[in-house]
């Protein structure tokens, strides 16, 4: 134990009362995200990278692409792994050491969205079936933890993937001077909701996360399919609430997808 993840009753009651009135601590509407700033390509040592700022939350995603053996049960698929580190830099509550529950859940939720969409054309990254494939590492480095790490990590990861450049291989599988983008099929976008009392709001802040009863992350892909979901928190959602969140996720997913595409186009990445 170093610090306690605590919110005072006074601050909690204030947030709960505001929610009843349809308001939020930082003046946002229930369906309103904090400002998203994406900075792709800032880590030159990585094949792809993106620093995502969602409000004050900062997540840096780095993509490294190696070569390796495929899994025996998927000889015709590339390998992709997602890892998240809640490093002690990012919060007084994070400790160093092996990944704990929260960072493993975070990595797996982000991973599922990308894997199931699927974002990456995994078969096309096979070099020699059953023997050699590309191995894509998605590493999420949390720099400042101020609420909604799920969505900040998702934005950082998919923007990094979409701007990753890897060497083209020659016929023997050796890298050439030429670069190519990763074969991307989709851009999965997650949308995280907090249920506070009877209200549901998107993109919870750090204080809202401390008071929420339940949390729901819905990831959707370009065609409006849901590709991953994760419920968290100690309370429950009704079916109506879930269908409503899904509808909102599809709408928000479209907007974020456009933001990412526009940015990539504008910067010529």
């Amino acid at each position, binding site marked *: 134990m*170093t*610090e306690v993840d605590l919110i005072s009753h006074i601050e909690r009651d204030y947030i709960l009362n505001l929610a009843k009135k349809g308001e939020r601590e930082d003046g946002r509407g229930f369906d309103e995200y904090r400002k998203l700033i994406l900075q792709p390509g800032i880590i030159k040592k990585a094949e792809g990278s993106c620093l995502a700022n969602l409000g004050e939350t900062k997540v840096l995603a*780095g993509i490294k692409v190696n070569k390796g053996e495929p899994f025996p049960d998927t000889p015709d698929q590339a390998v992709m792994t997602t890892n998240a580190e809640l490093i002690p*830099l*990012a919060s007084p509550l994070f400790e160093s050491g092996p990944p704990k529950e929260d960072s493993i859940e975070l990595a797996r939720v982000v991973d599922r969205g990308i894997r199931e969409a699927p974002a990456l054309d995994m078969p096309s990254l096979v070099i020699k079936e059953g023997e050699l494939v590309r191995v894509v590492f998605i590493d999420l480095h949390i720099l400042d933890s101020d609420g909604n790490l799920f969505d900040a990590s998702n934005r950082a990861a998919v923007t990094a993937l979409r701007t990753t450049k890897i060497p083209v291989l020659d016929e023997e599988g050796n890298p050439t001077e030429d670069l190519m983008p990763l074969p991307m099929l989709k851009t999965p976008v997650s949308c995280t909701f907090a249920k506070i009392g009877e209200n549901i709001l998107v993109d919870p802040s750090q204080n809202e996360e401390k008071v929420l009863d339940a949390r729901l992350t819905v990831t959707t892909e370009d065609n409006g399919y849901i590709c991953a979901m994760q419920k968290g928190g100690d309370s429950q959602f009704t079916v109506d609430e879930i269908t409503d969140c899904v509808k909102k996720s599809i709408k928000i997913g479209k907007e974020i997808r456009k933001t990412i595409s526009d940015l990539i186009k504008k910067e010529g990445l």
Partner: protein
Amino acid sequence: MELIKDGIRIDGRKKDELRDIKIEVGVLKRADGSAYVEWGMNKVYVAVYGPRELFPRFLRRSDKAVLQCKYNMASFSVDDRKRPGPDRRSVEISKVTRGALEPVVLTENFPESVINVNIEVVQAEAGTRCAGITAASVALADAGIPMKDLVPSCAAGKVGSEIILDLCKEEDNFGESDLPIAMIPRTGGISLLQMDGLMTAEELEEALNLVKKGCKIIYEKQKEALRKRYKGDDHD
């Protein structure tokens, strides 16, 4: 590969020239104090937490605060992906970093507590420990922790027969020797000293003089970054 020719180094610098250094203060919201340094290709964040209560209890000191330093590299910070988590190198760097900062921090003001210095290297290319120490002392000051001085740090080394300042990647990999140093400008004391490779006593003297010049420049940048952060408050 020729690392130095007619006094000009492989990356175009002169013998006594530092790479470009940019320091920002107060870049992380959650931390009690923070700093970000870009130094050539190096990109380093530092967050300071504390002084706060130390657990487990038996680690506490009744006469001073414990300074805990953690140096960590992001897996994507280097060409070949590094496995996440601490390795022997980062544990050693954490230790010498603590030794570099400890002499200036007035730990005696906060007995029984801990001050955490977390150094995250998100991009690495020669000289990350010096960049980390340079950023860490600024982040400590930003956290309002009393200290005797800031701690600038940089390396010198030997390439061919020349003594040079602030080694780049090629010089680090293929040069004769590497000498990372941290200095306490007020006293002229040296609080980080490591070396690997070969060097004569005379060359060491020359290298230390060069480092002193480099640290002076870095010290000015540290002070400037801190003043800029707080003068900026004026315009909020």
